[in-house]
C-alpha cells in the first residue's frame, strides 16, 4: 500500500485526531502541557489559519489579523467584565464586530497588494493597539480588562483545562474543515482564480473586489473566533496582547508551519509554542531565538514544516534524476528533470 493512498491518509488522520483528543488525558503535568502547549497552540493555530486562508486563496499576506482578534476580545471583555453581560451575547457580538471591522478594513486594504497591503494591515494592527491603549473608558487603557473567568457553556465548564482544550480543538477542527470545504466550492475556486489572474476573472464577469472583501471578512471571522479562544486562555485582554510582538507571532506561526498549507497553521503554532516554552534551555532571549528560527525557515525551508516532506522528496527526485546513468535515460526516453516534473504535478497541499 502506498503512503499516499486514501486508506493510509484517512487512517493517519484518524490516528492524529484520536491522539489529539486523548492528549489531555495522558500528558503529565496537564496544567502546563494542556494549557501552555495545547490550548495556546490551538488558538494561535486558528489565528495562523486566518492568515493562511487569506494568503492561500487570495495571495494577500496580512499582518492585521490580530486587530480582529482584539476587536472580538475587547468587545467580549468590555461587555462581560465592565457591563455585566453574559458570555453568549457578548461572544456573538464580539465575532460580529470582528467581521464588520474585517469588512471595513478589507474594503480599502484589498485595493493594495504586495508590500503595500502588508504595511496597510500592519498599520491597522497598530491602530488597534493604540486604540486599546487610549480608549480607556472601553478598554481600561494600559492595564487592560483582567480577571475574566471562562464561563460554563452547555454544561461545559471552560475553567477546566481539559474541557477548554477539547472545545478549542473542536472549534479548530470545524474551522479547518470549513476552510477545506470552501477550497472546493465555486467561491473557493473563484478566489484561487482571481489570485492567479484577476484580469481574466474580471473579464469572465466576476466582481473581483467583492470576492476579495468577502474573503478578507471570512478571515476576520476566523481571527475573531481565535480572539474568543484566546480570551478564555489568557483570562484577560490587554493592549500588549494586540501589540507588534503578538502580530509577528501569528506571522511566524504561519510561515514556520507553511504559509500555503492549511494544516501548517496548527503545525507552525505548535512549533512556535514549543520554541517559546523551551527556549530557556538555549537562551534567555526567546524573541531572538524565535527570530532566528523564522529566518532559517524562510531561507532554507520556504514551504515551512508542512512542506518539508515535499521539499525533501523534491531533492531526492532531483538527485535520482541527476545520477541516473545516461544510457538508461536514453533507452527509456526520459531526460533529466523528469522527477522534478513529476513532483510539480502534485497538489500543493
Amino acid at each position, binding site marked *: 500500500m502506498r503512503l499516499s493512498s486514501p486508506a493510509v491518509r484517512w487512517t493517519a488522520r484518524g490516528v492524529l485526531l484520536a491522539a489529539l483528543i486523548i492528549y489531555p488525558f495522558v500528558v503529565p503535568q496537564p496544567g502546563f502541557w494542556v494549557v501552555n502547549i495545547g490550548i495556546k497552540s490551538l488558538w494561535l493555530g486558528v489565528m495562523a489559519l486566518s492568515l493562511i486562508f487569506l494568503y492561500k486563496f487570495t495571495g494577500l499576506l496580512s499582518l492585521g489579523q490580530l486587530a480582529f482578534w482584539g476587536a472580538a476580545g475587547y468587545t467580549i471583555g468590555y461587555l462581560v467584565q465592565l457591563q455585566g453581560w453574559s458570555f453568549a451575547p457578548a461572544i456573538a457580538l464580539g465575532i460580529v464586530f470582528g467581521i464588520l471591522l474585517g469588512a471595513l478594513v478589507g474594503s480599502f486594504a484589498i485595493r493594495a497588494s504586495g508590500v503595500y497591503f502588508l504595511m496597510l494591515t500592519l498599520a491597522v494592527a497598530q491602530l488597534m493597539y493604540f486604540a486599546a491603549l487610549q480608549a480607556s473608558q472601553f478598554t481600561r487603557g494600559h*492595564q487592560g480588562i483582567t480577571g475574566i473567568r471562562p464561563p460554563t457553556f452547555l454544561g461545559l465548564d471552560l475553567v477546566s483545562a481539559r474541557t477548554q482544550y477539547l472545545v478549542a480543538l473542536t472549534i479548530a477542527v470545524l474551522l479547518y474543515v470549513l476552510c477545506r470545504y470552501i477550497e472546493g466550492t465555486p467561491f473557493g475556486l473563484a478566489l484561487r482564480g482571481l489570485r492567479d489572474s484577476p484580469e481574466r476573472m474580471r473579464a469572465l464577469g466576476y466582481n473581483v473586489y467583492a470576492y476579495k472583501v468577502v474573503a478578507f471578512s471570512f478571515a476576520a471571522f476566523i481571527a475573531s473566533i481565535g480572539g474568543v479562544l484566546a480570551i478564555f486562555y489568557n483570562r484577560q485582554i*490587554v493592549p500588549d496582547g494586540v501589540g507588534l510582538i*503578538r502580530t509577528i507571532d501569528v506571522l511566524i506561526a504561519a510561515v514556520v508551519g507553511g504559509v500555503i498549507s492549511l494544516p501548517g497553521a496548527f503545525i507552525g503554532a505548535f512549533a512556535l509554542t514549543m520554541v517559546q516554552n523551551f527556549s530557556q534551555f538555549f537562551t534567555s532571549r526567546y524573541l531572538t531565538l524565535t527570530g532566528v528560527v523564522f529566518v532559517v525557515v524562510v531561507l532554507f525551508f520556504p514551504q515551512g514544516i508542512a512542506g518539508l516532506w515535499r521539499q525533501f522528496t523534491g531533492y531526492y527526485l532531483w538527485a535520482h534524476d541527476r545520477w541516473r546513468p545516461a544510457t538508461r535515460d536514453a533507452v527509456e526516453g526520459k531526460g533529466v528533470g523528469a522527477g522534478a516534473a513529476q513532483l510539480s504535478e502534485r497538489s500543493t497541499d
Partner: protein
Amino acid sequence: MTALSRASGWRKNWMLLAMFGVLSLIATACGVEDDVAVDEVDDDIVDEPADEPEEEPEVDEDVDEPAEPADDAIVIGHVNALEGPFAAGAEDGSRAVELALQEFDSEINGRPIEVIVESSDTTPDTAVERARKLVEQDGVDIVYGPLSGSEGVAISQYAAGVPDVTFVDASSGGAETTLEGPDNYFRFTAAGDQQGGNFGTYAYEELGIERVAIVAEDYAFPHALAGSFITQFCEAGGEVTEAFWVPLGESDYSSVIASMPTDVDAIYGGIGGSDAVNFLQQSIEFGLEIPLIGGSILVDETVLAAEGADLRDAVEDIVAAAPVFADEDNAEWVDFEERYHAEFPDGFETPSLFAALYYNSFKSLLHALEEVGGDLDDGHEGLRNALSTVAWDTPIGPIDGVDENNQGAVSNFIFQVVEGDDGELTTELLRRDDGIEQHPEPFERLDGCP
C-alpha cells in the same frame, strides 16, 4: 474541478468531521466517567502546583532540563523581562539577584537554592505563561518576579489559583497587585502611589508651592503616582488648577504646553521614558518658564541619559521624589554599590533602579527562607509568616514586614537635580522618608483636588 469531484471532496470533509465527532464523544464519555481525573486536572491548574516530588523527576527528564535541581534544593522560578523595553533593567536586576545569592552562598541551612529563569517581554500574557510553566512544568517552590506593573497584576491573579506556591514580587508597581492580590503574593518594593512618598505635602510645606497644574500619562501607574501627590497637596492646603492626562506614547506636547495656565507656581510631571524626554525637550523649545516638579519617572536615569537630547535647561533644579536614590552617605548603599562594581565591572556606573529593587525583594525572600531554615514542608506557612515579619536595612532604607495586603512599607527620597562640581548634572538628596505605606484604595484619575 468537476462538480462530482467537489462533492467527493465535501463528503471527505464530512467523514473527517464525523470521525472527529465520534472520537470527541468517546473522549468526553471517558471524561464523564472519570470525574476525578478531570477534577485533578482542574486542581492542578487552579489549586495545586505540580510539585509533588515523587512525580517530578521522570517528567523533568522528559523535557531535558539542563540543570536538574538537587533533590533537596529550594527551587525558585524567576520571571524576568529579559526581552522588551526593560531588558537592560531586567538584566541588571539579575545581577542584584546574583549578589544576594552570593551573600547566602546559594544555600539555606544546607539546602541549595536553584534559580530557574524564564524570560518574559513585559507583557502580562507572556508573564503568566512563564509563571505557569515554572509552577506546573518545573515544579518550583517559589516564583520570584516580575518587573513591570501589568505583569504583576496578571501574575498575582494567577497566584490566587496556586495557593501552595509562594510568590514574591521583584519590582512591579501596580496597585491591584497587592490590594486585590492573594495571601501567597508578597511585595517589598513600592506600588505606584508609594513612589510618590510624601512629595505632595513636601511641595506645599517646604517648597512653598500653592497652585499647581498636572501633566501625566493616562494609565494606572501615573494615576496612582499623581493621585497620591494631588491628595496630599490638597490636604496640605494647595490647589490643583488643571490636570492634563496625555496618552502613553504621546510625542507632541505643543497643545498641552500652549494651554498650560500661567498663574501656577509649578507644573507636576507624571510622565516617564521617551514621553518625558519629548515633554522636557518641547518645554525648552516652547520657552515654558514655570518650574517643573516631578514624579519618580520624570527625571530618572533613563531620561537624564537620553541620547540626542539636551535637557539640561529643563531638568536642572527639578525637585522630584523616587523610591531609589544612590545615597553615598548610606553605608548599606555604599556596600551594595561596591560589591556590585566588584562583581560586575561591566555593569552600570551606578546600580540601576531595578538592581536596587530586585536586591531588596530577593534578599527579603532569602532572609525569610533563612528564618525557617529552608523548611517548606508546612505548606509554606512558616515561610509566609517569616515574609510577613522580615526586617533588615536595605541599601534604599529599612524593610519591616508587610501590611494586611502583603505589601511592604518603603522609603522615599525627595531630591533635586543640580549641577555638580564637575559641571555635570547630578542629584542632591533633600529628604528621606521611611515607612511609606500603600494607599488602601487604587487611585482613579483625578482632575483636581478630590
